[in-house]
């Protein structure tokens, strides 16, 4: 484990990203909190990252995974496969 208490902006944003999925450790969160106290840019980044997460939450409710195989798709698969079967 990385024992360093003070972290860089790059490390802070990286922890912030992990935290969006609830996968930052307690120690990481403490370091991120401490860093953000003194760093306005990373604080802004965190706020915006949270907004992005919320947006993605809405996104997953609204999108239905680009569809299914159409009949044409299946005919195409069928044709290609039977071409190979005959060989």
């Amino acid at each position, binding site marked *: 484990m990385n024992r360093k208490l003070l972290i860089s902006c790059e490390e802070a944003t990286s922890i912030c990203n992990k935290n*969006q999925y609830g996968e930052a450790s307690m120690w990481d969160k403490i370091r991120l909190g401490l860093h953000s106290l003194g760093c306005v840019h990373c604080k802004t980044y965190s706020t915006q990252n949270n907004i992005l997460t919320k947006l993605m939450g809405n996104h997953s409710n609204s999108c239905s995974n680009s569809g299914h195989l159409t009949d044409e798709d299946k005919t*195409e698969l069928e044709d290609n496969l039977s071409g190979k079967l005959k060989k």
Partner: protein
Amino acid sequence: MSNPKKHTLDPNKWIVLYADYLFNYAIVRVDDHDLAKDLVQETFYSGLKGMANFRGQASERTWLISILKRKIIDHYRKINSIKGKKEVRVNFYADGDNKGSWMEERVPESWGNNAEKKIENEELKTALDECIENLPEKYRIVFMLKTVQNYETEEICNELDITASNLWVIIHRARQQLRRCLEDNWFKK
């Protein structure tokens, strides 16, 4: 003990029986209709070629899925090794006294006080979709699996044959790029 049933293969029925199943399996993971279709096609081809290796221990469907899984990993390997010009620009100084600090010109700008309130907006969703489209494929696939499909880190690592630290670097870059893209194309306007 009863004799385990010996499974057999019948390629003539593959499309009818498994095309949809395989396609659904693939589309969730690659989030692209044509690519998913191609992967299914290749799975059937490889299945045909490898029929002699089928020992009848697994069902036909399980056997085909295992081929498809391999195809997805192969595809991911391929795109993961491409260094395209769409590669994310760095936001932090790589060395010197400021190592790891925000580069001046890459600093996140304020999105305004009511940014939170503006998120229930159809146009913003379209802007976000476009930003996601613009992510390099290798980032998009991992980001979508993690964020939209809510896959566990370990699951994604297995599916795509990458390490956890690899995954977090990708998520890190994807989120940085998305943040930037939303700022440029939406909040600044």
